[in-house]
Each structure stands twice: as structure tokens, then as C-alpha cells.
């Protein structure tokens, strides 16, 4: 307890003494912040790469995800209660549907996409006097209730006397011990091993894997990023994009594919399902993220919108241009017939 308070006091005094350096650090880190949409003053310029949390990008991704109320509110397995019936007028029904869409929008909020966290390697003190005093490490955790977990001090005294900050894995484990979160386990569930993942993918349960990953890992941990990448790769390989459509993971999938420049499969799937506006938004997002690619420059020069964007993309970037052009021709024919009739 004494050691803990002294550690905290040391930090406080340290921050006072090193005020100038800390403020410099904060200033440096401001530009690297990716998940603070409110404090972002600088609009994405041509030089800055658009990040996941930009309002324009988020807008496009929410539009592409769609909102299928039947899928979002599908019955889940839970404790059964007797059903409650309500008699409503048409207006009340509309209001109820509006409430449901609001709730669905909240449920479809996308989990953050962050760069991998840097490992913590700070040594606070090296006490040679304590060398060999004990055979086990001692971990001191600050269990004050009202502080966010990212501001919690956790330090480890090793048997050779060094006092260091706990690593990310140790932090996550200990915070789960003292402040358990429902659904999270202390050791990672075995579902995230390769062979179990393969089995789950063969059963088309990618959404379950991603939900479990959200519950278990922090968004900037390496396992979270690996599991998400593996799931997205599997979906892209088999073309099962519809499994995630109208869930909170579709935005992440699209962002991953756009950054990897492998959007063809997704565009073909959208054209098969006749979601032309979604395909157009996706191509515009691609141009936003890769402004120096051929199709982006062509589109900017021609000021193209709508179906023309898709045509330019099909000609310049895509590998499956044949299919895309055929689909566009069919769409134009049906549109022409519809307008003629």
C-alpha cells in the first residue's frame, strides 16, 4: 500500500517537475490521435490520409452497412417471458418503428479501428538491495474505483529488484481480475486458435467470432487485429460478405479491404445484389483513401459521379472488370426500359 502511494506520489511529483516535457509529449501525440472525433480541428487535407473516425468516412460506411431491422432485431436465445401485446394506431406504429430504427443505429455503432499499441517497457527503479529477496514477482495495482482503466497504475517488482510498469497483457489480465467484465475471460478462449477458427468459419459463424473478439480483447491489442484480419481474409476469399451486412462489423471489413486495395469481390457482390448506390459510395470511399491511384485521378479530372465512377474504376483498377461492365450495361438497359415505359 505504502509502495503504491509512493509510486503515485513519485509520478505526481515527476509530472510537476517534467511539466514541459509532458506537455511536449501531449502536443506530439495530439496529431497521432485516431479516435477523438470531437477534438479533431484540422479537416482531412490532401496530404493527410483519412482515418476510420473521420465523419465523411463514417457516413459512407454507415450507408453501405445498411439497416435491416429484421436482421438487427432477430430473436436471440434468452430467458423466455410471456409475450406482451399492444394495440396501436398507424401513427403509433410509425413512431415505434422510428424508435426501433434509432435503437438499431445505436446497436450498429462500429467498434474502433486503431493501430497496434506500443509495448510498455518502462523501468521505474532498480533496487539492487532487494535482489534475491523473494522468488516471485509482486504486482501492485491501483484499485481506485473512479478512474478509467487506461489511467490505472500497475507496476511489477521483479525478484532481481527492478520496479517496472506492467506490460499490456499483464494489465489486461489484472484489470479483469479486479474489475471483471461480463463475458471476458482471464485466459483467451480456445476458439481463437487456428483449427477452431477454421471450424467456425466453415459453419459461417464469422459474426460470432468477431463479437467474441470484441468482448475479450482491447481494440488496439495485437490479438484483436490478428483475429479481425483473419476473419476478413476468410470472408473475402469465400465471398461471404452478406453475413456481415447490417451488423456492426461491416464497416471494419470495408475499411480493411479498401486499405488493402482488394475491393473487387465486394463490388461484384454488391452488383449481384443490385446495390448500385452502395457500389458507387464504395468507389468514392476508395478514391478518398487512395487519391493518387489512376482511377481516382481519372475520376477527379472528369468530375465523374454515379455509374461513371464505377465504369472508370472497372477500366483502371479492377481485375474483374468484365463482370462489372456487364452488370453496369444490364443496369443501364433496365433503367432505360423503366424510363421509356
Amino acid at each position: 500500500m505504502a509502495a503504491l502511494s509512493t509510486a503515485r506520489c513519485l509520478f505526481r511529483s515527476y509530472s510537476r517537475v517534467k511539466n514541459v516535457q509532458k506537455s511536449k509529449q501531449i502536443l506530439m501525440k495530439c496529431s497521432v490521435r485516431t479516435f477523438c472525433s470531437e477534438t479533431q480541428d484540422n479537416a482531412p487535407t490532401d496530404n493527410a490520409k483519412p482515418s476510420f473516425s473521420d465523419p465523411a468516412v463514417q457516413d459512407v460506411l454507415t450507408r453501405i452497412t445498411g439497416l435491416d431491422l429484421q436482421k438487427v432485431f432477430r430473436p436471440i436465445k434468452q430467458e423466455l417471458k410471456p409475450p406482451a401485446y399492444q394495440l396501436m394506431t398507424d401513427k403509433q406504429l410509425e413512431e415505434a418503428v422510428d424508435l426501433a430504427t434509432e435503437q438499431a443505429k445505436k446497436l450498429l455503432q462500429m467498434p474502433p479501428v486503431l493501430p497496434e499499441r506500443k509495448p510498455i517497457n518502462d523501468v521505474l527503479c532498480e533496487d539492487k538491495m532487494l535482489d534475491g529477496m523473494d522468488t516471485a514477482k509482486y504486482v501492485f495495482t491501483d484499485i481506485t474505483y473512479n478512474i478509467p482503466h487506461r489511467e490505472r497504475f500497475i507496476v511489477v517488482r521483479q525478484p532481481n529488484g527492478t520496479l517496472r510498469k506492467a506490460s499490456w497483457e499483464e494489465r489486461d489480465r489484472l484489470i479483469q481480475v479486479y474489475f471483471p467484465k461480463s463475458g471476458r475471460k482471464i485466459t483467451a478462449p480456445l476458439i481463437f486458435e487456428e483449427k477452431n477458427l477454421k471450424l467456425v468459419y466453415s459453419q459461417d459463424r464469422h459474426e460470432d467470432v468477431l463479437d467474441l473478439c470484441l468482448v475479450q480483447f482491447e481494440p488496439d491489442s495485437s490479438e484483436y487485429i490478428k483475429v479481425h484480419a483473419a476473419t476478413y481474409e476468410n470472408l473475402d476469399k469465400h465471398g461471404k460478405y452478406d453475413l456481415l451486412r447490417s451488423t456492426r462489423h461491416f464497416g471494419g471489413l470495408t475499411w480493411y479491404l479498401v486499405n488493402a486495395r482488394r475491393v473487387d469481390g465486394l463490388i461484384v457482390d454488391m452488383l449481384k445484389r443490385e446495390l448500385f448506390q452502395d457500389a458507387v459510395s464504395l468507389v468514392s470511399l476508395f478514391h478518398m483513401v487512395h487519391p493518387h491511384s489512376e482511377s481516382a485521378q481519372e475520376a477527379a479530372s472528369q468530375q465523374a459521379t454515379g455509374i461513371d465512377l464505377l465504369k472508370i474504376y472497372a477500366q483502371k483498377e479492377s481485375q474483374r472488370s468484365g463482370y462489372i461492365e456487364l452488370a453496369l450495361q444490364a443496369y443501364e438497359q433496365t433503367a432505360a426500359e423503366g424510363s421509356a415505359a
Partner: protein
Amino acid sequence: MNVTGTSSRDNFFMFCQQRFPVRTCAALSPFEHPSRLYCKTASLQDNAAAQAKETLQRYKDRPWDYLGSEEYIEKYGTNPVWAGYRRNHKGGIPPQKTRKTCIRGDKICGNPCPICRDPNIIIHHQNVKLLQQFISPHTGMVFDPTQTGVCMKQQKMLNQAINTARDHGLLPFQIPYVEFSGEDYSNSHDAVGSTPPPPCLTTSDTWYTWYREITPDDNEVAKVKTTYKAFLK
């Protein structure tokens, strides 16, 4: 002397034979004629023991094969394993807990529970079809042992197997929803961000002055020694 050790299992097999009288399995023929002759009981016991061992070994490595075999379909059809089992108890309300265990050593009790009565049914975390029979399809919760009739030991093993299966991803279950709004992921706080090391580490000095080697003042040492002379060796 009757063969008491396997009598309940005999009854179960005879019950199954009554439902499906056409059984070409020659191995079970000794049970159709329970012989009262003294000289034959010893050989019957040996046969029964040998057959029980054989059946145990048959599905030991792959317990999920049994649920697709003809034997299983003849016995249970499409019903779950615990369908039609009735506990024997006094009074109208059954006790809140089922019996502790049906098999104690070699002895099996009368009216064993649905899992203990059939030695081919092995609870294993990969035996998904069997485990799913004990989970409600509507609520996703495991059935109470008072509903299914299994003994407490088997219920414990069942719970463990279901948890392992869910861990491995073989059984689907409802995952809680996680909110991500209002969290700061910048890692700028000193607790998780990089802080400059204290000066004593870089200059290889000690944190407190008294951490170093301190040579005591000779006068002070002499004074202390005189005060405690009686206790020093």
C-alpha cells in the same frame, strides 16, 4: 443366484428388444433366456462383463459415432436420450436434486439415469449432438437435472463438457453486447504511455542517499557497543 450387477442394464436391453423384436444381433441372445441353471450363471457373468467391456471400448475414441449408428436410432429414434425416463421417488413432488451417482464402483443402482443406463453414451466436448440434447433450443440454457433425470455426477460432467465445447467454438451461444463510446484510446496517460526514466537510472546513482554503502561513524559505533556490552559476544 441372479446376476445382480447388470440387472438394470439387462432390463433396459430387454425393454428395447420389446419395442423392436427383430434383433439380429447374436451377441445379445444370452439375455433372452435368463438361465436359472447354476452352472451357466458363471459363464453368463463372464459374457456380460466381456460384452460391456467391448461396447465401452468400441466408442471410447470416437463417442460421436454412436449417435449416428443404427443401434442408437433403434433405441431412441429422434427423441433425446432422456425422453421417457421417469425418476422413482416418494410422493408427488420429486426431490430438488437427483441422486448423487448411479454407478458406485462396479455396482449400478436400480433405474439408472439416461446417461448411466447406456454405456455407449459418453460425455465428451466434441460429442456435440449429445450435448445439444441437453440444451434448450429456445432459451439456450442447460436443462435442469430434475427435468432430464440425470444423476448429479453426470450433470457436473455435462456442464464441464458444454463449457469446453463453447470455449472451442463447437456450440453456439449468445454473446453480450459491448459498448465502445466514450473511451479514450490515445494512451497518452503516464500509466500506459512512455515516461522518461528517473535520473538515477541514467547516472547509475541510487534513488535515496541512504541506499548507498554507508560507513558508520566510529565514535557512534563505540558508544553503541559500550551501552550494549553485556549483550555482545
